[in-house]
C-alpha cells in the first residue's frame, strides 16, 4: 500500500439529483458537518479510504433544490476556484437530464477537472429513456459514468476513473455558444488577461456579459475598461437577441443542453403509463390532491401526537424516579435544587426531542425523500400568496406544528431575506406540540374538544392576518414560486436517518445551552423567594385585565422555557390535574390563548436571534407579548358573554 496519497474531491449538482446519497455512500460514517465561514449554510465533509488513497470529499451546496438561494451558487463556484479540488464530481439526474446539463455547462465554464456521475440511471430506463454515456463523454470531453447512488452502483468506478484520469488529465474545451456571443467573449478576454485573479479568463468574460454584480465589482477595480466594454457589447447583443444580456447566456446554455440531450437520449415511444405517473396525477389534482394532502398531513400529526404522548408518559415515570433518587442522594438544599434544575432542563429538552420531534422528523423526511413535500408547496402556493409568501413557506409551517425551533430554521428555504423573516415570524405563532399539550390538556379535556379545534382554527386565522399585515408592512416585491417538481421515488432509509439525525442534533445544539441557563436562573429567582413579588407585579395584567388567578404570572414566566410547563406547574401547584376545580371555562380558554401567542419559547427566541439578529428577535418577542395580552383580554370579555 502506498500511504500518504491524497485526493480532494468536491460533489456538485442540482438539488434532487441524489448528491447526498452519493456523499453518504462514499463517506459512510466518516462525516463532519459544519458551516461555511460566515454563512448559515451547512458544510458537509467526509473522508474515504480507497486503494491506498485518503480521499477528502466535500459536498457543495445543491442548486435549485427546495433549499435555494443564490448564496449557495456563489459558495460552490468560490470553493471550486479558490480551493481547487483535484476533481469535481458532477452528480446529474438522468431522469431530468436537460435541466441538469444546464448546471453541468456552468460547471464546465469553471475549467476545473470534472467527472459526470449520470445518476438514477435505472429510473431513466424505467421512464423509457436510453442515454448514451459514450456520446455524452465525446460531446463534453470529460469522463461520464452511469450510477445508481441509492444502491451504490457505479460509484467505485467514478473514483477509479478519477484516480486513473488524475495522472493524465487533459484540458477540455469549455462549451462554446453562439457566434456573436463568442466574439463578444473573445473581445473581453483580451482585456482580462493577467489580472492576477484566480478565475478563468473566459469565465470572467461570461460573468461580465451576464452582469454578475460581484464579479463586475471586482473587475471594476482592476480593469474598469473591461466593464465598460462589457456594457457596450451587452447592448449590441441585446439588439440582436431582443432581451436583456444578463439572460442571453443562460438562454444559450439551455439551448445547448437541449441539443445535447437530443443527441444522446433515445426515447421509447411505446411505453405504458406507470403507476407512479398515475399517483403523480392524483396527488396534484385540483380536488383529489387536496384530499390526499389532508389525509397525509392529518395522519402524520395524529401519529406524532399519539406516539409522543405515549413515549412522553414513559419518560415522565423514568425522570420522576430520577428526581426521587436525586433528592435522596444529593439532597434537597438550595445548591442541590439548583443542580437539579440544570439536570431537569436537559431532561425536559429530551422529553420534547425524543417523543415528539424525532418521530416528526422521520415522517417529514420520508415525505421529503419520497417527493411529496414539493406537492404540498404546489397545492398551497395560492393560499400562501395571500400572506405575501409563496408555497414553500408552507413547509416551515408544517414543521412548526411539531416544534417552532426547526420550523424557524427551515425558513432558510425561502429565497429572499424579507420572505425568510416573514415566514419565521409567522412560524412562531403556529401552535407547536407543547402548545397542543395545553390546548388539549386544558381546553380539550375540560371545556370540550370543539373548543380545542376552534382554538386551532383561531390560530390559523391570526397567522393569516399577521401574514397579510407583515407582508404589507415589510416593503419589497413578493417572490414568485419557481420550483422543480421531483419525480416520486422510493424513500431511502439511509438518507432519512442521516437527515433526521442532522436536524435533531441541530435542534439540541441550539436549544440546550439557553434552556439550561434560563432554567437555572428561573429556579434561582424561585429559591430567592422573589416569585410572589413578581406575580403581584404582574397581577394588574394577569388578574385585573385577564381575570386569571395571580399564580399564572409565575406560570407564564416558566412557560417561556417550555410552553407545556404552564400546565405541568399548574398541576404541581394545585396538587391535582383536576383543573376544572380552580379554573372556570373562560379562564381556561383565556390561559390557552395567552399561552399560544404570548412569546416564542427560549429555544425559538435563540434561533430568531441567531438568524436575524437580537434587535429583530427582541422586537418580535415584545410585539407578541403585547399582542397576546390585548388579544386574550378581548377574548376574556367576549367569553364572559358566552359562558
Amino acid at each position, binding site marked *: 500500500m502506498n500511504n500518504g496519497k491524497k485526493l480532494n474531491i468536491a460533489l456538485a449538482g442540482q438539488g434532487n439529483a441524489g448528491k447526498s446519497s452519493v456523499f453518504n455512500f462514499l463517506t459512510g460514517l466518516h462525516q463532519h458537518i459544519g458551516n461555511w465561514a460566515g454563512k448559515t449554510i451547512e458544510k458537509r465533509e467526509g473522508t474515504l479510504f480507497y486503494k491506498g488513497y485518503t480521499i477528502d470529499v466535500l459536498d457543495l451546496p445543491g442548486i*435549485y433544490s427546495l433549499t435555494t438561494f443564490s448564496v449557495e451558487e456563489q459558495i460552490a463556484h468560490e470553493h471550486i476556484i479558490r480551493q481547487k479540488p483535484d476533481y469535481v464530481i458532477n452528480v446529474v439526474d438522468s*431522469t*431530468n*437530464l*436537460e*435541466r441538469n446539463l*444546464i*448546471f453541468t455547462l*456552468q460547471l464546465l465554464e469553471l475549467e476545473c477537472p470534472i467527472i459526470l456521475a449520470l445518476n438514477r440511471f435505472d429510473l431513466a430506463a424505467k*421512464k423509457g*429513456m436510453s442515454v448514451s454515456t459514450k456520446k455524452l463523454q465525446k460531446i463534453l470531453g470529460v469522463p461520464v459514468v452511469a450510477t445508481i447512488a441509492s444502491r451504490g452502483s457505479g460509484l467505485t468506478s467514478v473514483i477509479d476513473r478519477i484516480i486513473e484520469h488524475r495522472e493524465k488529465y487533459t484540458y477540455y474545451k469549455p462549451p462554446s455558444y453562439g457566434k456573436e456571443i463568442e466574439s463578444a467573449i473573445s473581445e473581453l478576454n483580451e482585456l482580462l488577461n493577467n489580472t492576477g485573479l484566480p478565475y478563468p479568463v473566459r469565465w470572467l468574460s461570461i460573468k461580465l456579459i*451576464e452582469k454578475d454584480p460581484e464579479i463586475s465589482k471586482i473587475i471594476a477595480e482592476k480593469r474598469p475598461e473591461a466593464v465598460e466594454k462589457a456594457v457596450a457589447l451587452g447592448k449590441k447583443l441585446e439588439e440582436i437577441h431582443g*432581451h*436583456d444580456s*444578463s*439572460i442571453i447566456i*443562460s*438562454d444559450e*446554455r*439551455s*439551448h445547448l*443542453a*437541449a441539443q445535447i*440531450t437530443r443527441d444522446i437520449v433515445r426515447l421509447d415511444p411505446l411505453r405504458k403509463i406507470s403507476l407512479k405517473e398515475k399517483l403523480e*396525477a392524483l396527488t*396534484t*389534482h*385540483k*380536488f383529489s*390532491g*387536496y384530499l390526499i394532502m389532508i389525509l397525509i398531513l392529518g395522519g402524520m400529526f395524529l401519529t406524532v401526537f399519539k406516539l409522543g404522548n405515549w413515549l412522553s408518559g414513559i419518560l415522565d415515570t423514568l425522570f420522576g424516579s430520577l428526581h426521587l433518587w436525586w433528592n435522596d442522594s444529593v439532597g434537597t438544599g438550595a445548591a442541590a435544587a439548583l443542580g437539579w434544575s440544570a439536570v431537569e432542563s436537559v431532561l425536559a429538552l429530551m422529553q420534547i426531542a425524543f417523543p415528539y420531534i424525532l418521530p416528526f422528523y422521520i415522517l417529514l423526511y420520508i415525505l421529503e425523500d419520497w417527493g411529496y413535500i*414539493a406537492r404540498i*408547496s*404546489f*397545492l398551497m*402556493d*395560492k393560499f400562501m*400568496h395571500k400572506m405575501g409568501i*409563496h*408555497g414553500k413557506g408552507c413547509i416551515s409551517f408544517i414543521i412548526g406544528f411539531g416544534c417552532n425551533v426547526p420550523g424557524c430554521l427551515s425558513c432558510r428555504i425561502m429565497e429572499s431575506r424579507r420572505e425568510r423573516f416573514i415566514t419565521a415570524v409567522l412560524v412562531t405563532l403556529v401552535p407547536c406540540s407543547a402548545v397542543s399539550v395545553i390546548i388539549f390538556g386544558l381546553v380539550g379535556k375540560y371545556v370540550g374538544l370543539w373548543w380545542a379545534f376552534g382554538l386551532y382554527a383561531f390560530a390559523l386565522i391570526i397567522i393569516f392576518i399577521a401574514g397579510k399585515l407583515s407582508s404589507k408592512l415589510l416593503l419589497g*416585491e413578493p417572490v*414568485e*414560486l*419557481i*420550483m*422543480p*417538481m421531483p*419525480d416520486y421515488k422510493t424513500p431511502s432509509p439511509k438518507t432519512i436517518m442521516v437527515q433526521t439525525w442532522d436536524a435533531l442534533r441541530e435542534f439540541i445544539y441550539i436549544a440546550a445551552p439557553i434552556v439550561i441557563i434560563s432554567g437555572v436562573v428561573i429556579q434561582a429567582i424561585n429559591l430567592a423567594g422573589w416569585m410572589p413579588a413578581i406575580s403581584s407585579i404582574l397581577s394588574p395584567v394577569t388578574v385585573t385585565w385577564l381575570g386569571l388567578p395571580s399564580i399564572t404570572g409565575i406560570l407564564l414566566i416558566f412557560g417561556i422555557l417550555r410552553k407545556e410547563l404552564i400546565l405541568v406547574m399548574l398541576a404541581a401547584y394545585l396538587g391535582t390535574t383536576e383543573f376544572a376545580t380552580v379554573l372556570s371555562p373562560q379562564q381556561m380558554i383565556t390561559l390557552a390563548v395567552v399561552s399560544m401567542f404570548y412569546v416564542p419559547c427560549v429555544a425559538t427566541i435563540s434561533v430568531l436571534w441567531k438568524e436575524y439578529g437580537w434587535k429583530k428577535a427582541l422586537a418580535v418577542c415584545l410585539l407578541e407579548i403585547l399582542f397576546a395580552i390585548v388579544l386574550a383580554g378581548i377574548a376574556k370579555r367576549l367569553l364572559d358573554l358566552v359562558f
Partner: protein
Amino acid sequence: MSDRKSIVCLTDLRDGESGNIVSIAGGKGALKRLADLGLSTGTWVTVVSRTLFNGPVQIEVCGSRLVIGQGLAAKIMVEQK
C-alpha cells in the same frame, strides 16, 4: 384542422395543451432562474395541471416538471399550435 397559430398566456392553456414560448416578461432575477431551469424563448412547454382558484401552474419542459407561480406564469406568452 387549421394551422393558424395564436399567441396566448401560459395560464390560458388548458391542461395537456402545449405551446412554444415567445416571450417572458419578468424581473431579471426570475428570468435568469427560469433560463437556468431550461425555460426560455423557443422552448416547448406543456401544461400538466394547476390548482384551484388560478393557483400555480405545473408544466413539463423537456421531460422535467416545473411549478411556476400564477403571477409569473401569466407573464409567459406562448404560441399555440
